[in-house]
């Protein structure tokens, strides 16, 4: 049975190599902050390239808002590193080139028999990896807009920061 990836469930604490080849845990990458986690087909997909250009525009806000981004695909670390550098992304990319979580997460894109990639999906997570929202990106319009991600980050931040209401 695969993981339950619906709202209020706990996302599995994935352990994968990052874009520089160092093994990382998702919970460590969150470091106590809200997290946008996205699974993408690969660098070659035009829809992913369009979506990443959107995320790169969001990173300027995320970097000052104590919010993390993590992206996962089946690409090798070196490919991820090159893709990340080309995008100008400054967050962590994770490589599941051995496809160890594809089926556990039930995120295998079965319609692509060539690359066997991840189904495009985006999750917004609390620091403890509890799912706030899940977006199915198989069709491009199913992906979250930056405004939707902002709203999710706002809701999570409001819930976890005790000083959301300014201390007096």
């Amino acid at each position, binding site marked *: 049975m695969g993981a339950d990836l619906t709202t209020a469930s706990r996302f599995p604490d994935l352990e994968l190599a*990052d874009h*520089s080849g*160092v093994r*990382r845990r998702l919970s*460590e*990458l*969150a*470091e*106590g*902050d809200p997290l946008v986690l996205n699974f993408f087909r690969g660098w070659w997909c035009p829809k992913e390239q369009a979506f990443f250009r959107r995320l790169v525009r969001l*990173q300027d806000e*995320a*970097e*000052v*808002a*104590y*919010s*993390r*981004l*993590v992206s996962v695909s089946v690409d090798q670390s070196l490919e991820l590193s090159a893709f990340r*550098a080309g995008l*100008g*992304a*400054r*967050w*962590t990319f994770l490589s599941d080139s051995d496809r160890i979580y594809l089926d556990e997460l039930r995120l295998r894109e079965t319609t692509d028999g060539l690359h066997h990639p991840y189904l495009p999906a985006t999750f917004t997570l609390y620091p403890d990896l509890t799912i706030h929202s899940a977006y199915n990106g198989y069709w491009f319009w199913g992906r979250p807009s930056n405004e939707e991600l902002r709203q999710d980050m706002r809701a999570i931040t409001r819930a976890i*920061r005790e000083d959301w209401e300014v201390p007096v």
Partner: protein
Amino acid sequence: MNWCWFAELATPTAGTLASAEVLDLDGRGVGVLAAWAAGRKPVADAVRMDARIVNPSGAPAWISLVLLSRDRSPLFDDPAVSGALRAVLSYPPPDAVSTFVRDSSRFAGAVTVRRGGPADLHSDPFARLGRARVLRVGPGLFGRAASVPGPVIQRYAGKPWPAPGF
């Protein structure tokens, strides 16, 4: 506590968390670098550093060290500092990195640790903010830390970036 004190000394001293002798590029001894546990400030020039990069069993390393005097320290929120942090996140990750803070608002420098060789440190982004010295540090001070998960460039409650948590 995920920060510690850090300072450059002329000679070794007792009571440190970790310390190591330092050589310049010509192999001359130029003093000692030391870290102390968080708490009472150990020496007048001590600055706060991410404690995760300290390892008393750490191997020798090359470092790029930028230590700014109080009157040369820019605000941590200065765009030049933010730009250097973005560059750190963009470049191949070092073995370890930490900024220094002296108080709640000022950037006091940074240390970047690599073990490949001194040439790997010539593009230290923090050299834009002050004189960067490339030094050889003996064993027993710096370890390896996982690369910084971006894109956050803000400090948490005045801690030295990238130490996490409020």
